[in-house]
């Protein structure tokens, strides 16, 4: 089906249109309990085991607001430079769907807890774009449907559906940007950078697992095109099911080229929800609705208004951790990094790991060197992200310590790291198991040097004649003979002493 979709060349799109973005991000909070009941808020679990009368919407049940979720919402709002409502309410969003136990979602409508903020987003080349935040509001997640049979995996055409309400009532914060115009050809990159920055921020706030693969961070991308000739706003589409940072970028780019092709052929963009397909990188329309959506919002009568006192808000402001951009500025200063180096570290996803390694006792330069060179190579070879390597910053710091103390050479250190990556245990355990240690017994080294000199008499003679650089060959031979466990500098000293 997607192969039939006409796409316009990207450069041509940019020539003719200005893309306008709008991003809606849903974040599942990792509070201990759900938004309106005492059930465990845990990912997974046997279906329908984290449920109670309230999150199952049983007749007579009532919601009670999770104070911790409100606290998290306010902290998120503050970190996004939002105003925090002095008084706000929950509202019911009414629509029928089997995975929503009450057939209404308890959400916020025209009275969000946080509004009018912004997030400064740094692009790959260092340019900073300010994304304005419309609002951040609290709501509850739905359950999950598993549609069995049928071609699409969607409810339509399925033979039957299984419902799991473990996720029903999990606290969500929906963060909505204002329209983001003027990003031009960088629109897809801006979309990805925004979600990345938001993810890092939420992680620093420690309010969510922010796992896009598990759905604890979900992005809906609104895209429209405004013709450069008229400047009129275009009709937008909302693309859902965008489950990775890379997909955010791809989905926006695809929609731009698709919408442009529709407009170019004289057609009109349909305002609709579209689904992103990870494998093809394309979007396809959701099921057509027969009637216009009317959610019949009204204030939730089962809950009382939320009126966070200014004292509480100020107190929460005080609990904000060092935010990602503040931290980057500090690290750049402390480690004396150029803008470019810092950006490379951020882009490589290495900053956290390096900082943690430094916290574990390594020097910044040493830590950086390990992560951006040897470990980066290893990640590349293994096809994983740096964070996916099975070695902790503390272990890296320990390896560095062993090198600095002279217990390991650099070569041995890499072998120790390999062992850790292979799951052989901690650096010390690997050193022990693999018998990695510097040969520091001079008599053993002297014996090896004598053997090497005897084996290469011509080289030995050159050294005796004062050609000191020739010593390298003998050192190399000794290192080989000792399987790299010797301290090369010491070997060199012995070679020179023997030939003097």
């Amino acid at each position, binding site marked *: 089906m997607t192969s039939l979709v006409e796409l316009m060349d990207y450069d041509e799109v940019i020539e003719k249109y200005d893309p306008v973005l709008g991003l809606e991000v849903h974040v599942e909070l990792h509070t201990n309990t759900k938004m309106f009941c005492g059930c465990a808020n845990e990912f997974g679990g046997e279906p329908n085991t984290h449920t109670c*009368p309230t999150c199952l919407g049983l*007749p*007579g049940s*009532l919601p009670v607001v999770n104070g911790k979720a409100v606290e998290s919402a306010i902290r998120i709002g503050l970190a996004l430079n939002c105003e925090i409502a002095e008084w706000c309410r929950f509202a019911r969003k009414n629509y029928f769907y*089997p995975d929503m136990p009450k057939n209404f979602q308890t959400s916020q409508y025209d009275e969000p807890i946080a509004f009018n903020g912004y997030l400064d987003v740094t692009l790959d080349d260092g340019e900073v774009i300010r994304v304005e935040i419309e609002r951040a509001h609290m709501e509850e997640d739905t359950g999950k449907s598993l549609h069995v049979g049928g071609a699409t995996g969607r409810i339509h055409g399925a033979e039957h559906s299984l419902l799991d309400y473990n996720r029903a009532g999990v606290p969500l914060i929906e963060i909505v940007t204002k329209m983001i115009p003027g990003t031009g050809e960088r629109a897809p990159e801006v979309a990805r950078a925004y979600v990345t920055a938001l993810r890092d921020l939420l992680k620093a706030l420690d309010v969510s697992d922010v796992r896009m693969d598990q759905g604890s961070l979900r992005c809906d991308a609104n895209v429209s095109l405004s013709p450069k000739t008229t400047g009129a706003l275009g009709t937008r589409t909302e693309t859902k099911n965008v489950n990775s940072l890379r997909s955010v970028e791809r989905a926006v780019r695809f929609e731009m080229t698709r919408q442009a092709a529709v407009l170019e052929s004289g057609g009109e963009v349909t305002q609709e929800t579209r689904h992103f397909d990870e494998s093809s990188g394309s979007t396809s329309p959701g099921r057509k609705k027969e009637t216009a959506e*009317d959610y*019949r919002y009204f204030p939730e009568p089962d809950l009382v208004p939320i009126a966070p006192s200014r004292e509480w808000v100020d107190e929460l402001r005080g609990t904000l951790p060092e935010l990602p951009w503040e931290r980057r500025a500090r690290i750049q200063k402390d480690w004396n990094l150029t803008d470019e180096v810092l950006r490379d570290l951020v882009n490589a996803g290495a900053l956290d790991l390096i900082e943690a390694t430094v916290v574990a006792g390594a020097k910044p330069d040493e830590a950086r060197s390990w992560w951006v060179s040897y470990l980066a190579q290893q990640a590349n070879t293994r096809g994983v992200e740096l964070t996916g390597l099975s070695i902790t910053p503390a272990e890296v710091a320990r390896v560095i310590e062993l090198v600095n103390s002279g217990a390991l050479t650099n070569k041995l250190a890499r072998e120790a790291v390999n062992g850790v990556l292979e799951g052989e245990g901690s650096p010390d355990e690997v050193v022990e198991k693999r018998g990695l240690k510097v040969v520091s017994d001079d008599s053993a080294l002297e014996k090896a040097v004598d053997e090497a000199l005897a084996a290469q008499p011509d080289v030995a003679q050159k050294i005796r004649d004062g050609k000191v650089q020739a010593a390298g060959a003998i050192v190399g031979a000794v290192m080989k003979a000792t399987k790299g466990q010797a301290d090369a500098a010491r070997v060199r000293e012995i070679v020179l002493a023997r030939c003097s």
Partner: protein
Amino acid sequence: MTNDLIHATAAELAAKIHSGEVTSVEVTQAHLDRIAETDGKVHAFLHVDAQGALAQARRVDEAVKAGEQVSPLAGVPLALKDVMTTEGVPTTVGSKILEGWLPPYDATVTRKLKEAGVVILGKTNMDEFAMGSSTENSAYGPTHNPWDLDRIPGGSGGGSSAALAALQAPLAIGTDTGGSIRQPGAVTGTVGVKPTYGGVSRYGLVAFSSSLDQAGPCARTVLDAALLHEVIAGYDHMDSTSINAPVPPVVAAAREGLNGDLSGLRVGVVTQFSGEGYQPGVARSFEAAVSQLKELGAEIADVSCPSFDYALPAYYLIAPSECSSNLARFDAMRYGLRVGDDGTRSTEEVMSLTREAGFGPEVKRRIMIGTYALSSGYYDAYYGSAQKVRTLITQDFAKAFENFDVLISPTTPTTAFKIGERANDPMAMYKADLCTIPANLAGTPAMSVPSGLSDEDGLPVGLQIMAPALQDHRMYRVAAAYEAARGSFGGPSL
């Protein structure tokens, strides 16, 4: 003996059971026998839980025998409106859509009753989802007024009030969204109290209109109602709208009222609730009650609450709006009725067929009205305006309570009408709640106490007493004083 037991008040029964004069099992059995004997005619109960009731009675008897301190109503039987969830015991809310559903949990009210040793005899009939003023809207057939079996027992809690009048139980629980405790109380000659909104937990009360629903006590005497009030009231962390304040001292107030002195009490007669549409016998009964209050020392004057005229229309926008959302969950997916699931139909079709078959006409009417009133483009004109009226009514109450300690009116404009008489005239039916609705909209407490029988038809009439929020005890004092002065007006013969 049995005859004495079913005529006795809850206070008397409690005293006898706690002193060991009778056992709770004897008292419970007497009421179960009475139900068996009379409910074929009255149909107050949807479900009688004899086994559960006798088990609870035995527990109380053992505790009494062991000399344990038991709570004031321990061992006394009670009829529970079928709107309250009861773990493992059917809860239908008078609807086919919940037929056969066994709740996995107890409502807070149910739990408190059980903990207090109250014996729950069973679940009483009601208008479907508490929508109605006659109990004719029950999917399981109407309840008959024990005073005249051809007449309605009021609604929605007609089952609870009829059970009291029929001597099937000395205590009952009702819920009042627009008068569903007070109006049945009035037309059956029993006492019915709607506490301050938030005074009694709504957890486990199957919602009709969340911002109006309030559970309360029903009894044959004011003191019994007060005793029950204190068992079920109090803050509940499971209900966000529950008030975190001490329970008003209603038992003490009822006892104080019994001394018959209301000197200096300022009583306002709401002028909006008289005149056209008020049955002459009801008006005369009300006048007699006013005279009696004067004799007790009360100072009586008229008070006008002009916005009360808009209470009924505002109510019929707010309540249906909330109900259209509250009842959305009955969709065949998780519990209750499921119609048309033959493997060929879509989820939407099964939902639609189930709701079509499971809800009665009045429920459908209100879901449609509410859905319309909340629709985009109509919200401000309907739901929004109704909320403004609500504010005005609250202000009228506040103004009136600056000059008066309590307000009074007839509870309902007429005595019990005939079954079927208003069944096809919703507007006539809705007018039964004309006087009771303002207190629901304002969240203030109100109660109905019998003011004797109407002289023209010999049917019971109710006096409504209204008080400011959290001053529930004020109306108990007045009601108890009046009740004592009024004296007995007899009872129905069955």
